């Protein structure tokens, strides 16, 4: 029967999967038949595999049955059958029971089978074995690794690699053989079973050296913990140019990157290697090396980076799409950090705008937009509009995003940008596409005031036939806010009222609110006409629309216009993350009584319009940088995964919100302690300071909390020992200056193994006002009673001490980071000035970005105008602002300049309180 059913299946529609049960039965039958019919079995197994690779699975019992039936095929010696049998067994291994039974047959094959299926046997063996059974096959593996047949050797190396997670120490014993195989010459013997017609292809080469790739990766696994032996290996292998396989070279580059990340001193000694790699005959190697250099740009000097750029530049012109794509992708990333450097490739990039691959042209454009200067912007925008019709929505979104950042960068060019956006807004497109355009226009309106009228006009036109409710609502809201401030508000009223007449209820209700905002401006005639319009909405079919109309009318007709104003267009915005946190806290309060009093909205910090905008602007700019750095958004190409977005949002909430959230958390924690609760409001908390190395037995960090009259130090102590229990843990501090007096400490009674606890110690601040900001140092010792973790309760431990580092009170502890929008004005107004100059040392040895980040933390001030991102790499000026705990303003400009003597840093501080200004200027670690 079986031969007939084959025919039927083969003639029918080939996309229909063979029936699962039929295949199962036939396989069992054919495998158990005697004599075994090799051709038929191979055909059947290929159908079984077809099922597997279409995603079908068998239950364990059936899988095990199949597994054992197939193992019977080992009675037949046909290599063609054996090869597919191994493949089937490999696929069945993970779902079957008792797979160990087959070990002996496989090992017999490896010892004396035909060379054609030996590699398959080796690879199957690694699936059958586990950590306890690997010993039996040790000798076999060793022999195979050194086998002169490249396929066998490769298979054995790869199998060893697969076995690493279960038997690392066993595999490690083969390291001599692995080492030997890197340099050994291996060949492919040809087999009579694998004759093919090589139409258009050359016959199989003698060797492809790919075993080097496998062996190299395996050796790295043995040695990656030992830096010295790794370096030795790299030197040995590169000196004699033994690595001929490109994959192996790519692998080598990755190892070198790991080394350099650990210790950038290797860069210079290894540089000749890079030169080699950057001029390699394989573009794979060239790309990998360039990627390494440009990803870790801080470790390489400008000349070295230029070398990599030049390599990429030449790769931009190769015929292979994938290579061009990879090259332009790297350049695009570099352009974010250092647009100038990519500038040399502009000519090539412009040619790529018309590349037939849209991903390449999009990357080229966004790169160009980043490297572009004010003069070339117009030309670029025209070039882009020419091909906007041809690309898909996702690419359009990327382009729009780039345009948005560009218009913020060159505010003067808003006209051509808006024309461009207006054009694309008229095009067909999905929601995401339109949304990104609207976002861009919103941003332009917000940050480039001159553009407002034209842009609002555009938006009005757009909502006339906008199919997306959400967009209409947002635009109406914006019109409500911005329209009344425009020179001729009445024009907008017409557009908005059209919405009230023509749209669905959601749009209608937001249009009603927008309308009512126009009634607030000082124009009798307008007020009256709007009231008439609103009255019409009182008859609306939707209750929300009616409600809003009633509310608006009520407010407008009340005498108190100021109150109406505060309801209809409030001057303040609440900080939403904090509002959310407080509300959750309120709702989750276990104490039922607390619900008697209503939620106190005043506890939420308010931001004025201006502050809010400034913060947003900053988030936008930084957000854009973050996005590009993490490479997530642009690489997603609009396939928005929601989780990704969430993470980004968290990242993007401004520093100031993060700071406030953290302060609130501290305040809550501290006020829960009765002794500290009565100190009043927490003025400032420092960032956490490490007092020990991270790998020690006890990991201690400290946070300094400043109160009106006290300073509380919160020590977080982690017991990293597994078998020691600590009791009565305390921190004994002695203070340098007598003005601070210790009040009390709250020790930890019991600190179990691998747990964390907190010790608080409280000090009274100097009473004398002139010593308000007195700096001092706390010499700390950790005191405790240690016990065995499994000791009896009544057993006495022994007291011990543990030295931890000193903690200093720094000027930053008295400074609260805060935000201002007009730094320059404030800077000019502040009177007390103090400055200090430092030499940071050799240019190559410091990473300016790191210095800047550290400064921000130690000075505890807020970076202004996005100056926390070091752009040029050599010269930078950092602007900081903060307030003292008593409310005095404090501003600082830190300038970095590199000279022949090294990088110089000049710290100029101005502020309202002279003693603090002096301290901040002169105190640096």
């Amino acid at each position, binding site marked *: 029967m079986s031969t007939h059913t084959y025919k039927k299946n083969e003639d029918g529609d080939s996309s229909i999967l063979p029936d699962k049960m039929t295949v199962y039965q036939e396989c069992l039958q054919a495998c158990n038949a005697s004599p075994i019919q090799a051709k038929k079995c191979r055909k059947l197994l*290929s159908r079984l595999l077809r099922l597997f690779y279409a*995603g079908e699975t068998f239950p364990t019992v059936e899988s095990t049955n199949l597994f054992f039936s197939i193992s019977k095929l080992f009675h037949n010696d046909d290599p063609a059958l054996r090869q597919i049998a191994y493949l089937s067994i490999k696929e069945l291994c993970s779902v079957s029971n008792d797979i160990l039974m087959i070990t002996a047959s496989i090992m017999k094959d490896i010892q004396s089978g035909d060379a054609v299926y030996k590699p398959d046997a080796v690879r199957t063996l690694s699936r059958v074995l586990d950590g306890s059974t690997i010993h039996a096959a040790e000798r076999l593996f060793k022999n195979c690794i050194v086998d002169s047949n490249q396929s066998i050797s490769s298979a054995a190396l790869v199998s060893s690699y*697969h076995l690493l997670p279960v038997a690392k120490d066993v595999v490690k014993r083969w390291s001599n053989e692995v080492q030997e195989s890197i340099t050994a010459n291996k060949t492919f013997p040809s087999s009579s079973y694998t*004759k093919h017609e090589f139409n258009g292809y050359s016959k199989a080469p003698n060797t492809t050296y790919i075993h080097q790739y496998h062996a190299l990766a395996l050796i790295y696994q043995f040695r990656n913990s030992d830096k010295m032996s790794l370096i030795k290996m790299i030197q040995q292998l590169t000196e004699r140019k033994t690595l001929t396989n490109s994959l192996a070279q790519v692998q080598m580059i990755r190892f070198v990157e790991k080394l350099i990340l650990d210790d950038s001193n290797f860069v210079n000694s290894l540089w000749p290697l890079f030169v080699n790699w950057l001029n390699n005959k394989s573009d794979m190697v060239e790309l990998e090396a360039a990627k390494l250099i440009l990803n870790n740009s801080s470790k390489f000097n400008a000349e070295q980076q230029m070398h990599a750029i030049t390599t990429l530049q030449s790769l931009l012109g190769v015929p292979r799409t994938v290579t061009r794509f990879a090259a332009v992708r790297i350049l695009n990333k570099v352009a974010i950090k250092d647009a100038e450097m990519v500038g040399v490739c502009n000519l090539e990039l412009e040619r790529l705008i018309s590349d037939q691959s849209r991903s390449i042209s999009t990357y080229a454009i966004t790169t160009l937009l980043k490297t572009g200067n004010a003069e070339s912007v117009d030309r670029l925008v025209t070039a882009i509009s020419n091909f906007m019709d041809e690309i898909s929505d996702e690419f359009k979104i990327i382009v729009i995003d780039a345009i948005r950042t560009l218009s913020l960068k060159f505010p003067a060019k808003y006209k051509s940008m808006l024309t461009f956006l207006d054009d694309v807004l008229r095009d067909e497109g999905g929601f995401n596409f339109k949304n990104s355009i609207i976002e861009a226009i919103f941003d332009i309106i917000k940050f480039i005031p001159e553009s407002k009228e034209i842009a609002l006009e555009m938006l009005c036109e757009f909502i006339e036939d906008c199919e997306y409710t959400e967009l209409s609502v947002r635009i109406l809201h914006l019109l409500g806010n911005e329209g009344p401030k425009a020179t001729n508000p009445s024009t907008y009223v017409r557009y908005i009222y059209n919405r009230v007449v023509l749209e669905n209820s959601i749009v209608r209700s937001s249009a009603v609110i927008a309308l009512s905002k126009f009634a607030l401006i000082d124009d009798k005639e307008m007020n009256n006409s709007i009231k008439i319009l609103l009255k019409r909405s009182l008859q609306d079919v939707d209750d929300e629309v009616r409600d809003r109309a009633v509310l608006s009318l009520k407010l407008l007709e009340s005498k108190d216009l100021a109150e109406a104003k505060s309801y209809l267009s409030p001057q303040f915005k609440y900080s939403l993350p904090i509002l959310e946190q407080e509300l959750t806290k309120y709702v989750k309060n276990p104490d039922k009584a607390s619900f008697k009093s209503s939620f106190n909205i005043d506890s939420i910090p308010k931001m004025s319009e201006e502050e809010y905008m400034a913060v947003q602007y900053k988030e936008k700019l930084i957000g854009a940088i973050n996005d590009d750095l993490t490479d997530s958004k642009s690489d997603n190409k609009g396939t928005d995964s929601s989780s990704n977005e969430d993470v980004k949002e968290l990242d993007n909430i401004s520093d100031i919100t993060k700071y406030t959230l953290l302060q609130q958390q501290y305040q809550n924690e501290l006020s829960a302690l009765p002794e500290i609760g009565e100190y009043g409001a927490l003025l400032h908390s420092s960032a956490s300071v490490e007092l020990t190395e991270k790998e020690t037995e006890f990991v201690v960090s400290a946070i300094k909390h400043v109160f009106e009259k006290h300073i509380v130090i919160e020590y977080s102590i982690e017991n990293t020992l597994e078998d020691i229990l600590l009791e009565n843990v305390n921190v004994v501090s002695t203070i340098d200056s007598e003005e601070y007096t210790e009040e009390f400490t709250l020790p930890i009674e019991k600190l179990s193994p691998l747990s964390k606890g907190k010790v608080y110690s409280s000090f009274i601040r100097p009473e004398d006002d002139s010593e308000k900001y007195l700096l001092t140092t706390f010499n700390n010792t950790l005191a405790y009673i240690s016990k065995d973790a499994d000791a009896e309760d009544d057993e006495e431990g022994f007291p011990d001490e543990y030295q931890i580092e000193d903690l200093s009170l720094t000027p930053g502890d008295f400074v609260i980071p805060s935000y201002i929008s007009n730094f320059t004005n404030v800077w000019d107004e502040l009177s007390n000035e103090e400055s200090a100059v430092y030499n940071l040392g050799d240019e190559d040895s410091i990473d300016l970005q790191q210095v800047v980040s550290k400064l921000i933390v130690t000075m505890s001030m807020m970076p202004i105008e996005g100056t926390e991102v070091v752009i040029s790499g050599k010269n930078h000026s950092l602007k900081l602002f903060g307030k003292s705990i008593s409310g005095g303003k404090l501003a600082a400009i830190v300038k970095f300049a590199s000279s022949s003597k090294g990088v110089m840093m000049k710290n100029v501080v101005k502020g309202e309180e002279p003693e603090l200004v002096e301290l901040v200027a002169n105190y640096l670690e």
Partner: protein
Amino acid sequence: MSFNTSLYSIDAILILDNQQNRIFTKYYKAPHENAESDLITNIKKQKQFEKDLFKKTFKQNTDIILFDHHTVVYKEYSDSVIYVIGGLNENEVLLYNVLQGLTGAFEIILNSQLDKRSMLESYDMLVIAIDETVDDGIILETDPSAIAARVTNPPTEDAVNIKIDLSEKGLLSAFNFAKKNISERLQQGF
């Protein structure tokens, strides 16, 4: 971000037809470790992934896209698409070399007829070729000829002879054949 220093560099190999039916799909994971992402174990997710990927790539005439945290290189044929999928930071050319190795090997073993029908007809050789190119995520070989040289042709010994005997030589030869067979088996002690 940093480079992947492990040998596991291929996340999946897919061959879909022009109706995005599966001809071959294999999502790789290290044999002795647990799956890291849902995509490897959850067939629903896989199908969704394939559907979205197919939509993005079909008739787009590019060789590479970045898709859902993966770098995907692919090649389209008249009625099928072959995808090689790796991590987002994987070397694009490395993946492309794997794809070229595969397609080249297919061309050799299928006599340059890369359509769905011949793929399914020689499915045994097709899957062996893939298995000889990538072993659970590790690249074994990227040279087309070398891969093809590892693929055995189907056996020539055939069961078809039996059928011809029965139909063309009549009952007597069938009887003789059966007698011979039975006595053989008896001798083997079966």
